[in-house]
């Protein structure tokens, strides 16, 4: 069984490495797919495993996006003048400055949201059920509205992230961001998979199933909830930082704290794939991304209508998601490639 897993991972890894060279036209799409998968996986940590359905992880995503860009600019140039000049090229990053700034920016973008999650976690995670859901929804929207009023990060007119340095053109830019997001994805997957095979995951599941009972059994639920949320925030912020560089332009409510798109997407992808499974969010994100690209391209303008209908249909008819449906339909022959390993992993855990 281990061997099967190993082969599968090798195949995926090799595919991931060569994908931008096989499909050079889809580099940006593939990078976005990686970011979406990271978001779905991180949402699943508390949404699926812990039972805390958050609409507010977009907070960490947007925070990471702004932080990464601000650090990247602020390390070398005055930030206020940069945002004031808008897209004008008053300051130009040298390649060394660009990569150095982006690296530091990503580190900050990952660490600070995790710290923020730890700080607000004690207050917010004490809320239960729908109060938590609405509270996090409020947090996300409030962050968007407030950041839209802060002058130094561009306020209403947006924030242009540093342009990619002038070598290799679009090809190099696409490859750079693709590998950034792919490496982050691999990192996220490794971390999440390894914590899912420890007692930590069992504690999270206990919290989901019955929090009071888990507390009565002597588990310090609050500690685990905060750690879970911090892990989630860490990778959310990382994904946000990469996405900011990839998009090249940050707007408070349309790109960074975009509760209507990303904030819903991450919930939807995890539910579509199957909450509370390791592979569910990955499958869900891939299926969703293909669907979304099709719709966004061929039915432009109707995409939100389709999104609304999709949410309703998925929530009402497929609350268990693809993985849950497969498990119910083929309990024995549970797929051959991807799903088999997941079931084996589940059995091993049990």
């Amino acid at each position, binding site marked *: 069984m281990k061997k099967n897993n190993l082969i599968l991972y090798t195949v995926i890894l090799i595919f991931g490495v060569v994908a931008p060279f096989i499909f050079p036209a889809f580099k940006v799409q593939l990078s976005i797919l990686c970011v979406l998968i990271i978001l779905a996986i991180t949402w699943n940590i508390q949404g699926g495993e812990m039972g805390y359905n958050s609409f507010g992880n977009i907070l960490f995503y947007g925070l990471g996006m702004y932080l990464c860009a601000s650090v990247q600019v602020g390390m070398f140039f005055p930030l206020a003048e940069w945002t004031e000049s808008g897209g004008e090229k008053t300051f130009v990053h040298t390649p060394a400055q660009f990569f150095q700034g982006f690296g530091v920016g990503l580190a900050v973008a990952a660490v600070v949201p995790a710290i923020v999650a730890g700080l607000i976690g004690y*207050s917010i995670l*004490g809320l239960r059920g*729908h109060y938590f859901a609405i509270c996090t929804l409020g947090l996300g929207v409030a962050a968007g509205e407030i950041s839209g*009023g802060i002058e130094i990060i561009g306020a209403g007119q947006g924030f242009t992230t540093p342009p990619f340095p002038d070598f290799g053109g679009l090809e190099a830019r696409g490859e750079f961001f693709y590998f950034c997001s792919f490496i982050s994805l691999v990192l996220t997957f490794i971390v999440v998979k390894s914590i899912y095979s420890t007692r930590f995951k069992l504690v999270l599941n206990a919290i989901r199933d019955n929090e009071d009972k888990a507390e009565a059994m002597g588990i310090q639920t609050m500690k685990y909830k905060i750690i879970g949320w911090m892990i989630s925030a860490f990778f959310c912020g990382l994904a946000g930082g990469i996405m900011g560089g990839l998009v090249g332009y940050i707007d408070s409510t349309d790109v960074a704290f975009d509760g209507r798109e990303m904030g819903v997407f991450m919930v939807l992808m995890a539910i579509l794939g199957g909450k509370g499974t390791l592979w569910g969010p990955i499958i869900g994100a891939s299926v969703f991304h293909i669907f979304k690209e099709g719709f966004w391209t061929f039915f432009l303008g109707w995409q939100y209508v389709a*999104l609304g209908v999709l949410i309703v249909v998925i929530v009402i008819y497929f609350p268990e998601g693809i993985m849950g449906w497969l498990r119910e339909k083929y309990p024995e022959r549970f797929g051959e490639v991807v799903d088999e390993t997941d079931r084996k992993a589940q059995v091993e855990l049990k």
Partner: protein
Amino acid sequence: MDFMVFQYPMISVQACLDGILLGILFALIAYGMALQWGVMNIINIAQGDLVILGGYIAYFMYLYGIHPAWGVIVSPIIMYFVGVGLYKLVINKVVDRDLFISILATFGISILFMQLMNFAFGADVVLANSGYGTTFLFDGNVVLPNSKIFSAFVSIVFAICLVIYMKKSKLGRAIRATAQNARAAKILGVDTEKVYAATFGINAALCGVAGALISITFTIHPYMGLPYTIRSFMIVIVAGLGNLPGVAISGMGLGVFEEFADYILGTEFRIGSVFLLLVLILVYRRFKLSKKREYLK
């Protein structure tokens, strides 16, 4: 930051009166929210979008030359059927499920409504002009548009009518019985499915009234729905389910808070401050409840 509001007391009076008149409208929306939450145990994120849809009905009457105040009568009738239709299509499948499912499903409806309204009515900020003029108080230091006074008056009338209806009528009794215990009500011969549909319809009709009034007094825009949902949610959790005077008072309190936030922080932070207040209230509530739990221990 602007502290003019403290230097000139008349501005505070203006803000208070504006806030109270606005808060009465919020309380009307929150009443609908409390009704469906109490009876059907669902939280409707699309509440605000129903309000905006009701507003567009009044706006269209205005465009076709009918006085928009008639929207107060027409809009709830149309919205009642919209609400019942929505119930038959979607809501009846989420009623007895997990609350998160209802939140997510209504979030989907909210996105759908937003975009459909955007297609149908355009993305402009619109206003139905009632032509009611203004009232000057305190030697012209405080200016109140008559449309705001009209809207507060109409909201109070509708709220009182609804309270009496819920107390006296057969359907009202059935709704209250279902809210208390749906199973027992079913055993005693109440058609709970019908009650649920009627409840959602009444909620939508209330939203229609509020929307029509908002289109007269303020402005409407397809994407402005979510703040109304959040406000009504906030009012309901501050007041508690089934506490009608509480809903009215906390609605007015929220209105006054918003007007002051508008003066002090600036208009661009108005919506942000509403959402932050929601977070603060929930956190406060969580610490209060956890203290209670410690006593129990």
